[in-house]
């Protein structure tokens, strides 16, 4: 005893045993899956179902029975063929009908009607113009700095020769019939060396040269593709490692260094990730394209590349969002200045002083008990320049009131004016006077965890006319309002004097 089911297949009601039904559904699902890529899959599957229904009806009628059994289903499948049979058939089926109907024209070089490589006659076939007009055009262009020669060579390399009969038919725009068959036929003949077309010596020579150029060109592209693959992969890996290090080992505090100290800590990680996505995906795409060139194969399918595109767009949008967010932190600018009067001397020596007082920030940074070092000085501090871009400016001007003054102007940007002003106030700059020696710190300092908001210090030194200034060697670290380098003096300190017209160079 077996359970039976009633099914509706191809608009017929068929009684079928349960195991037979399972086999049939499995088979139909396979077929549906196989044809799912086909645009007409619905119609094809319906036709097949109708035919199966018809076979069932015939079987029931012939064998005088009521129910379809598993043997019947097996017979039907054998007759209809398995999905594997369809796959074989797909390979064998030619697209000759598409080609017959389309009758499209393709651009080939016509070496049967050639003076050099058949480019002109090929163009003639393609454009339906006599080849002599193209030849005339190229001939004329040779007189314009020979530009036509380059164009001709490029076309020679890029346009394939019409080698087979079907290609020649394509070239002339004739409908190609049964071309697969013909090509096979021709290939067999070519393999047997039965035919060799005789052409002019010049054409043969040109053909050989063309082959060499094409091979070289292909090799060149392949080498470039390989380079892109190797370099791109290395770059990608480096980026990946860099990001992993950045996200994973934040105790190294990369956010204290420029330019990472521009970005607020709250979204630094996500911003770096967005940048990574926006940069890495084009590199991946480039590498994949290079793989395609190097191996003549497609590396990923359309869905994956579409997914990558979507992710990339997301990364780019997020990057733009963060960039505007960071840019908004620079919206307002604030500055304030303080003037200090210096003791008067006839001559001053300006030197660079890398030393600075040990600060609370240092005690945290170097993990030292600050009490022991209170009031102590760090000499030769080289760490800070990596913190910020060059940001101290020095102007030297004539004093109108006879006093020697140093004006320190602190400026900064910020989201609001108040924020900008507070950033400007947080700037720490070291300057000291020891008699006629003026010590300038090369850098301004920011408190720990202060973000870079384009903080700048502009110093203006005002001295009366007649005062001499000696600028020590290292003073070239500053930006000046006058031409610092115009005072060449063979390594000795640069000596200047203030005149009515401004600062002038003197020999020491």
């Amino acid at each position, binding site marked *: 005893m077996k359970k039976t089911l009633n099914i509706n297949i*191809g608009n017929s009601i068929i009684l079928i045993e349960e195991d037979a039904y399972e086999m049939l559904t499995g088979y139909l699902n396979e077929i549906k899956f196989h044809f799912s890529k086909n645009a*007409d899959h619905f119609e094809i599957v319906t036709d097949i179902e109708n035919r199966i229904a*018809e076979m069932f009806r015939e079987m029931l009628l012939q064998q005088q029975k009521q129910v379809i059994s598993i043997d019947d289903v097996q017979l039907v499948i054998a007759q209809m*063929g398995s999905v594997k049979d369809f796959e074989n058939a797909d390979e064998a*089926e030619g697209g000759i009908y598409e080609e017959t109907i389309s009758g499209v024209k393709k651009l080939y070089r016509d070496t049967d009607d050639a003076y050099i490589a058949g480019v002109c006659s090929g163009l003639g076939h393609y454009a339906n113009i006599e080849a002599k007009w193209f030849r005339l055009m190229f001939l004329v262009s040779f007189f314009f700095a020979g530009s036509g020669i380059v164009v001709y060579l490029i076309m020679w390399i890029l346009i394939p020769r019409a080698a087979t009969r079907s290609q020649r038919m394509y070239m002339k725009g004739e409908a190609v*019939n*049964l071309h*697969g068959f013909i090509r*096979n036929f021709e290939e067999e003949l070519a393999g047997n060396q039965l035919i060799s077309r005789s052409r002019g010596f010049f054409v043969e020579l040109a053909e050989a040269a063309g082959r060499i150029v094409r091979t070289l060109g292909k090799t060149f592209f392949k080498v470039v593709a390989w380079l892109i693959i190797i370099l791109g992969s290395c770059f990608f890996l480096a980026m990946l490692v860099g990001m992993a290090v950045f996200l994973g080992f934040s105790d190294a505090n990369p956010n204290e260094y420029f330019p990472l100290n521009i970005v607020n800590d709250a979204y630094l990680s996500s911003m770096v990730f967005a940048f990574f996505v926006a940069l890495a995906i084009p590199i991946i795409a480039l590498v994949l394209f290079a793989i395609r060139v190097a191996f003549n194969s497609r590396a990923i399918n359309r869905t994956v590349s579409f997914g990558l595109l979507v992710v990339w767009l997301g990364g780019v949008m997020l990057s733009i969002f963060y960039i505007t967010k960071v840019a908004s932190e620079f919206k307002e600018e604030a500055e304030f200045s303080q003037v200090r009067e210096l003791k008067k001397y006839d001559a001053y020596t300006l030197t660079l002083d890398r030393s600075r007082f040990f600060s609370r920030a240092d005690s945290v940074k170097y993990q030292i008990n600050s009490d022991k070092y209170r009031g102590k000085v760090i000499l030769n501090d080289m760490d800070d320049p990596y913190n910020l871009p060059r940001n101290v400016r020095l102007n030297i001007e004539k004093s109108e009131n006879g006093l020697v003054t140093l004006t320190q102007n602190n400026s900064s940007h910020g989201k609001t004016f108040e924020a900008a002003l507070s950033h400007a106030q947080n700037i720490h700059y070291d300057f000291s006077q020891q008699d006629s020696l003026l010590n300038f710190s090369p850098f301004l300092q920011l408190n720990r965890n202060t973000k870079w908001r384009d903080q700048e210090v502009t110093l203006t030194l005002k001295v009366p006319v007649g005062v001499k200034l000696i600028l020590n060697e290292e003073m070239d670290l500053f930006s000046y309002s006058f031409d610092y380098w115009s005072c060449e003096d063979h390594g000795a300190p640069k000596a200047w004097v203030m005149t009515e017209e401004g600062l002038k160079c003197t020999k020491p």
Partner: protein
Amino acid sequence: MRKGILEYCVLLIISKGEIYASDIIAELKKAKLLVVEGTLYPLLTRLKNNGLLSYNWVESTSGPPRKYYLLTAEGKEILNKLDITWMELSYAIETSKQTKS
């Protein structure tokens, strides 16, 4: 199966008059061209969508209506072209055979 021959034969069979799919299959089996039936349906659909074939629904006594295929004007034209190509081809083959022996 050589590329295109199956299509050529299907067109030839249909050109003899309106015909039902399973009769096409029977003819192809007789000609030892077709192993399994399943491959014929996608082919017919393709030819139909290319405008070479059309079909009519014809009522049958033993079940639902059946699709009967026939050639369109374009199909006939293509068939004529294929005939010419085939003759050229067989001429080429015959000639080659003669020169070889």
